[in-house]
């Protein structure tokens, strides 16, 4: 069952088309990634789905409701963590959770959330004195305190150190395990690869691809590279004739073989046949980042922010 259905969404600011024909659906119980560089339209899309912005065209259904007209009813079933949202400096952690819990008909026990999100020893600390990671965990806890069916998490791990990011990822997996559908907005490739069941790749206001992270990566139609250091003299001609090999180049004492398909296996067999031992053999596999470059023709970080 689709929890969120978005069809042909468009949004303009003046003459600038920030969203152009965006369509996707999110299934019950999955972590759905919205990936793209800054300015690609990710946050605008999610804010339309949350009912914070009115689209200029297209239709949106969340749990069967229109986010703008059904906003009040929907707000009981949806939890949101906004990208740029803070709390009053002097609000204590427990007061924030207690307050937000009071907004909902059937909230979770916020004391349990305090434990789960590692904030129990911070319950009497004021928001202004929390660390970046603690603030972020509090926001996620606030997004979940209404016991939502769908949670929107926008740039979840921004400002967290690597250990805190990994810990947050584990908690998000638990959220999914509890049956909550999660929409995750991110510009971190590793985060999306780690967490998302499916991902919509945004670029310049459009979805350029929508698939599982591993399918996106394996669909990359570009050369892969095999590197090694030959321990005996090697004639390049031995390798250029191997099926799938596109080019053979040298970089210092390293040989770099570019190729497609199952060329790597063929290359290693050829080397074995010629009795050329090698060291430091390495295959550079594609990442989601390569997938993005292949889809858009641009590197991920070159987009305006």
């Amino acid at each position, binding site marked *: 069952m689709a929890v969120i259905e978005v069809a042909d969404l468009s949004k303009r600011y003046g003459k600038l088309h920030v969203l152009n024909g965006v369509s996707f659906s999110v299934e019950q119980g999955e972590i759905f990634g919205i990936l793209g560089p800054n300015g690609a339209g990710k946050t605008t899309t999610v804010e339309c789905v949350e009912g*914070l912005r009115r689209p200029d065209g297209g239709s949106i259904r969340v749990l069967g409701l229109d986010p703008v007209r059904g906003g009040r009813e929907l707000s009981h079933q949806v939890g*949101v963590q*906004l990208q740029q949202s803070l709390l009053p400096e002097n609000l204590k952690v427990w007061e924030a959770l207690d307050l937000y819990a*009071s907004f909902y*008909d059937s909230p979770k026990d916020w004391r349990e959330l305090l434990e789960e999100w590692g904030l129990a020893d911070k319950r009497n600390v004021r928001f202004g004195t929390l660390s970046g990671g603690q603030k972020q965990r509090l926001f996620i806890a606030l997004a979940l305190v209404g016991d939502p069916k769908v949670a929107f998490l926008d740039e979840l791990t921004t400002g967290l150190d690597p250990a805190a990011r990994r810990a947050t990822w584990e908690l998000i997996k638990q959220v999914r395990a509890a049956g909550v559908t999660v929409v995750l907005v991110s510009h971190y490739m590793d985060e999306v690869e780690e967490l998302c069941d499916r991902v919509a790749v945004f670029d310049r206001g459009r979805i350029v691809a929508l698939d599982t992270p591993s399918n996106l990566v394996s669909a990359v139609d570009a050369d892969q590279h095999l590197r090694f250091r030959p321990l005996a003299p090697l004639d390049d001609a031995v390798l250029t004739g191997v099926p799938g090999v596109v080019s053979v180049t040298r970089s210092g004492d390293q040989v770099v073989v570019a190729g497609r398909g199952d060329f790597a296996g063929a290359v290693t067999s050829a080397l074995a046949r010629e009795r050329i031992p090698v060291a430091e053999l390495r295959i550079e596999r594609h990442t989601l980042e390569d997938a993005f470059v292949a889809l858009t023709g641009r590197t991920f970080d070159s987009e305006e922010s």
Partner: protein
Amino acid sequence: MTGFSKLAQVEAKLLLRDPGAIFSMAIPLFILVIFSGGTSPGDTALPSMSMTIAVGLVGLYMVPTTLATYRERGILRRLSTTPVSPGALLGVQLILQLVFAMLAAGLLVAVSIVAFQAAQPARVAAMSAAFLLGTSAIFAIGLLIAATAASGRAANGIGVLLYFPLAFLGGLMQPKEAMPELLATIGEFTPLGLFRQAIHDAWSGAATQPLLLAIMAAYALVVGSVAARFFRWE
């Protein structure tokens, strides 16, 4: 009404934790204590001035700073994704600030009578009416600042910058008799000048001037609707 009473509770705590609240209570009290040496028993002019200072500080400093900060920090926006509307927070804030201004005024009345032999307010009903209308007028200006300021810091700056000329014109820096005639006349029609005069009239027992009340109501209505028109939630 989900969450409404909890919201009021939490916002009341936050208000009391705000150093601005202590400041808004302490400054008029300080003025009252310092200058009461020069007043004669039965005086009502100085207490009226100190009450005007209190309401001016709450309305021009606390109201805009709090609301603009809430908007700047995305708190109003965050609330609009919950079952509680950001309008509820706005309402709770205005009510709490009004209650706070009333507490400050009550404290000033009590201190000036008990400690400095000021006269008892002669007409309590007229004073209450003047207080409510004047506070609405001054809060409306605070709301306009909150509506138009880009950030909490900007709202704070505008509020303070606006407070001083208005306090001067309203006869809070020096008695209006000591001011140039033109400025004193202009000052009579400024929100703080109207408030001070209307409170003073009621406290001392002078005849109520309906014109003052009407102008304050007009300020509240006109400035308040302009503020509502331009208020942005994000």
